[in-house]
């Protein structure tokens, strides 16, 4: 049974595209057949993060408007043949597709892939609604900042109103040292407000910036703390019970086991 998962956030710049690219790659590393779809039409990024920008011939809008077949628009990843990207159109905007188009598209992708990950645009308008239209489940990405958490809260309310079940949370760019100094919202603070299940915590990691710019995702780099966190999240998505650990700012050190705080991330029970 294939699963369609939309990655959303409300606020821009909190790590939706990075999360989509890394989770997609990590699932492919587990041997899954994965399609990552860029639903941010007009502002495409996912191709850049995956380093596939120069291979785009056709895009999502071409498929929807019948200028090509789905298979022609899918771009095979450089490292994993079982990972494919469906890029967004750059010269069009959100009105180029409808929710029905997206549902039809995701159903076509279900036939060929185990996982379909959809990178949602920021905002709460048509682009976001299209991105979740065909989804079975939704992952919310937020950073431990008041504005990002506020927008995540808004998105969670909308996702629930659209009957997409209970979304799960990725807390991105946590800086454990700032938290311990009381300068940043803690995992507990964020969960207290959002009251949804946590699927993983990704520490702030400068390597993400360099890997994103190079078009090499972090999960490929064994030394990347963020990469390891995304790998764990992918395993939890697949249903594995992986204890929640937050990798500290000091490289190589794994500290602060959060199980002791009374909450832990759980894998899917499907």
């Amino acid at each position, binding site marked *: 049974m294939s699963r369609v998962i939309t990655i959303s956030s409300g606020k821009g710049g909190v790590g939706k595209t990075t999360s989509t690219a890394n989770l997609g790659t990590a699932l492919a590393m587990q041997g899954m057949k994965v399609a990552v779809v860029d639903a941010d039409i007009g502002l495409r990024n996912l191709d850049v993060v995956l380093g596939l920008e120069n291979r785009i011939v056709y895009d999502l809008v071409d498929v929807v408007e019948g200028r090509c077949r789905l298979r022609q628009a899918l771009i095979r990843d450089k490292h994993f043949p079982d990972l494919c990207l469906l890029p967004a159109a750059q010269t069009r905007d959100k009105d180029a597709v409808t929710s029905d188009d997206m549902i039809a598209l995701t159903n076509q992708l279900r036939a060929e892939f185990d996982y379909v990950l959809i990178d949602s645009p920021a905002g709460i308008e048509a682009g976001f609604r299209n991105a979740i239209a065909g989804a079975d489940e939704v992952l919310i990405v937020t950073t431990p900042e008041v504005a990002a958490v506020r927008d995540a809260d*808004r998105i969670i*309310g909308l996702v629930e109103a659209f009957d997409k079940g209970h979304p799960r949370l990725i807390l991105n760019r946590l800086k454990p040292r700032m938290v311990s100094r009381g300068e940043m919202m803690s995992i507990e603070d964020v969960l*207290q407000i959002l009251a949804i299940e946590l699927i993983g915590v990704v520490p702030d990691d400068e390597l993400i910036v360099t890997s994103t710019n190079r078009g090499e995702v972090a999960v490929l780099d064994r030394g990347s703390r963020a990469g390891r966190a995304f790998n764990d999240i992918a395993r939890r998505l697949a249903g594995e019970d992986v204890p929640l650990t937050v990798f500290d700012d000091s490289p190589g050190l794994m500290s602060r086991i959060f199980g002791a705080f009374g909450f832990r991330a759980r894998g899917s029970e499907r």
Partner: protein
Amino acid sequence: MTKLVTIKGSREGLRLQLDDAAGWPDVLAALRGQLEQGAQFFNGARIVVDIGDRALADEQLAELMALMRQHHLEPSALGSTSRESRNTARAAGVVARPSVRGAGVADERGEAAFVQRTIRSGQVVRHHGHITVVGDVNAGAEVIAGGSVVVWGRLRGTVHAGALGDRAAVICAIELRPTQLRIADLIARAPDGAASGVPEVARIDGDQIAVEPWESYRR
């Protein structure tokens, strides 16, 4: 004394029931008073105006719509048991529905809505009576009640109690840290700083909103 204007909340929005026996000018005057008093309450709500069995003339309908428009309200429909009135409305381009009026009009002060979930940013809960929320009211959410509001949880959003003018309404929460509190026509900003750590009650004291711990309020 019968009320000329009765406000009822439902899943579909608000229903403004106008008395169908009293003189039309009196009813309009009562409606005008209610709209002025509860401007915050009506703002952004879906409204059905129910005129009951009254046979409405063209110019009476026009007066009604003009009054609503003055308060920036666009009724989604007109309800009436009178076929004649419904035809008048439709001729003027207003959606009209047959209305079924319950036997006795219940006292709306005694009615309450019960909500058991987290009210999230961007969500609005509105009821003409009291509202009880079992769950948190997050920042960016709004709870608007004709009566009092009780939050069994953390109150971080905006709450308006007594939004139809009732100055006796109160707001209480286990953790009262709202963005803003409103009771009737008064507005208070939350004090800066940490929560008190005890359940609190907000009410009108003199001409301002006062917040005190539940333990001292109940004495």
